[in-house]
């Protein structure tokens, strides 16, 4: 009798384990990942550190899209536009106004929040593929807007702007790349924690309620229009901060760095990482940064086709992305522990 009860109880827990941790990693896994992120740069070359910085930056941008799509259920192919606004804000403030790079991040965040919020207003009338189209238009327009003649004094036009890489402060004995990595890591962790808090809060529940059923959400008192635009604002703000960090890391901003290709990459990263699963953002970012390189390693002439095949394999094997892989791994570990 008791044995049967135990089996039932265990089966019950197995069902629960997934939704409970739906948004985040367990404490143990989080600490291991954090330790790896902290220690790794000590052992690798500057170029690898630079790539790790870019990994965090794209991770942030994918996270931002994840809040919008995975959280509030709105599609966006226009994230590159918010990324560009953030990058240019930082570049212009640093090069024209001599403002400290760290200070430009919150400014870029606020400007992009406003931009995303305002864009979200008209986008309220659209949903699904139509919203994707509207954001697509935003992404295509942005590089041209940045090239406009009357903005050229500030944006550098087609030439773009060169950004000075900051030195480590307080005479810390580390390279510029390493300092920027740790700076990016702190910003990324802070934003990750804020995002997890947000999605677990009343506002986050409102986002997800809207995603799942707008009419029911509204009947519960959720102001659908407000929260949809807020989701756009938050997503744009985080993307903008990622853009700022990207400008500092790459030391250069130019209109054609922020085309629709970037927006599609971020979208791809979100799908590969698992829609709605925040830790997957970093996995998705790794995919969009490293897999094209791997594809090029396999065949220079057909790198695009190889990338396509690799992407297809991932989607075929784990349609729900890294989240699914994590759940499978979790279950496998559980089985091994029992044996």
């Amino acid at each position, binding site marked *: 009798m008791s044995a049967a009860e135990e089996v039932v109880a265990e089966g019950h827990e197995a069902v629960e384990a997934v939704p409970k941790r739906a948004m985040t990693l367990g404490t143990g896994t989080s600490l291991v990942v954090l330790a790896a992120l902290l220690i790794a740069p000590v052992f690798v070359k500057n170029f690898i550190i630079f790539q790790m910085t870019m990994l965090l930056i794209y991770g942030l941008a994918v996270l931002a899209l994840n809040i919008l799509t995975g959280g509030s259920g709105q599609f966006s192919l226009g994230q590159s536009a918010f990324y560009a606004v953030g990058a240019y804000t930082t570049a212009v403030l640093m090069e024209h106004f001599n403002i400290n790079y760290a200070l430009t991040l919150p400014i870029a965040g606020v400007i992009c929040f406003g931009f995303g919020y305002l864009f979200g207003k008209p986008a309220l009338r659209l949903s699904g593929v139509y919203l994707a189209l509207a954001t697509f238009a935003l992404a295509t327009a942005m590089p041209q807007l940045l090239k406009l003649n009357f903005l050229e004094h500030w944006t550098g036009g087609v030439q773009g702007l060169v950004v000075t890489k900051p030195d480590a402060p307080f005479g810390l004995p580390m390279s510029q790349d390493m300092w920027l990595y740790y700076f990016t890591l702190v910003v990324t962790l802070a934003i990750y924690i804020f995002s997890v808090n*947000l999605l677990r809060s009343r506002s986050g529940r409102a986002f997800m309620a809207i995603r799942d059923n707008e009419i029911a959400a509204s009947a519960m008192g959720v102001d659908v229009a407000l929260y949809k635009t807020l989701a756009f604002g938050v997503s744009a703000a985080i993307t903008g901060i990622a853009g700022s960090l990207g400008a500092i890391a790459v030391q250069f901003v130019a209109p054609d760095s922020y085309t629709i290709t970037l927006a599609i990459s971020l979208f791809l990263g979100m799908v590969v990482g698992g829609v709605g699963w925040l830790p997957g953002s970093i996995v998705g970012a790794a995919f969009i940064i490293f897999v094209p390189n791997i594809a090029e390693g396999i065949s220079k002439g057909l790198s695009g086709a190889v990338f396509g095949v690799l992407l297809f394999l991932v989607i075929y094997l784990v349609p729900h992305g890294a989240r699914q892989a994590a759940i499978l791994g979790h279950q496998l570990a559980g089985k091994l522990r029992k044996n």
Partner: protein
Amino acid sequence: MTQAQLAQGTSPLLAVRDVSVVFGGIVALNGVSFDMHKGQILGLIGPNGAGKTTLFNCLSRLYQPSSGDILMEGVSILSRPPHRIAEIGIGRTFQNVALFPNLSVMDNVRVGTHARTSSDIISDSLRLAWIRRSEGDVNKKVHEILAYLDLEDVAHTVVAGLPFGTQKRVELARALAADPKILLLDEPAGGLNHEEVHVLADLIKRIRDDRHMTVLLVEHHMGLVMSIADHVVALNFGKKLAEGTPAQVQADPDVIKAYLGSKDQ
């Protein structure tokens, strides 16, 4: 009439006044009026297409009446958008269950408290002290409601996989989380078997008595309405056909005609 006896001189909690709804030439509701008094279970019945759901959607502000008024505690609700209805104490469930399928039972019920709580995205992101306090209160309340509706075992289960009957209970729990004064139930017996309808009838009565609620029951299932409603309003073709106690309405020749479609009843 009985309406007056029930009211005993008190003003109605909810008053539907001469409400008409016209959809491009088709009159879905034609001058319907009735009152709901505190503690009442009011059954709104009628055959398919009678206008029950239209009236229901006017109450939850999804439709705007072409004329007439709806007063909650004497104040018109018609200038309120749908998301500002919960805060004045009108809660609802949906005909075919409209939960948030990807959220857990607990989170579904937590969303129910939205109208009774406040927050902003910055405080939520930083998880400030007042947010933690408010979330603590929300959790306490949600646990109380889950216990009340016997949903504790599935508190952390994602809603999509639950049996239909359980989902209906979750929807009730979500509605109760907003502390409504009036509970609007849209065909709660739909899709339930005979046994489950009995359980539901007891549950609705229990909620009314324990939680001092007023219930508007829009229902097809005559058995359910006749067994628990104090007062029944029958609609047909957008018009009020009859009103009174269940027995009175059941005996009304017009109601019988509308339901059985026979002339010589």
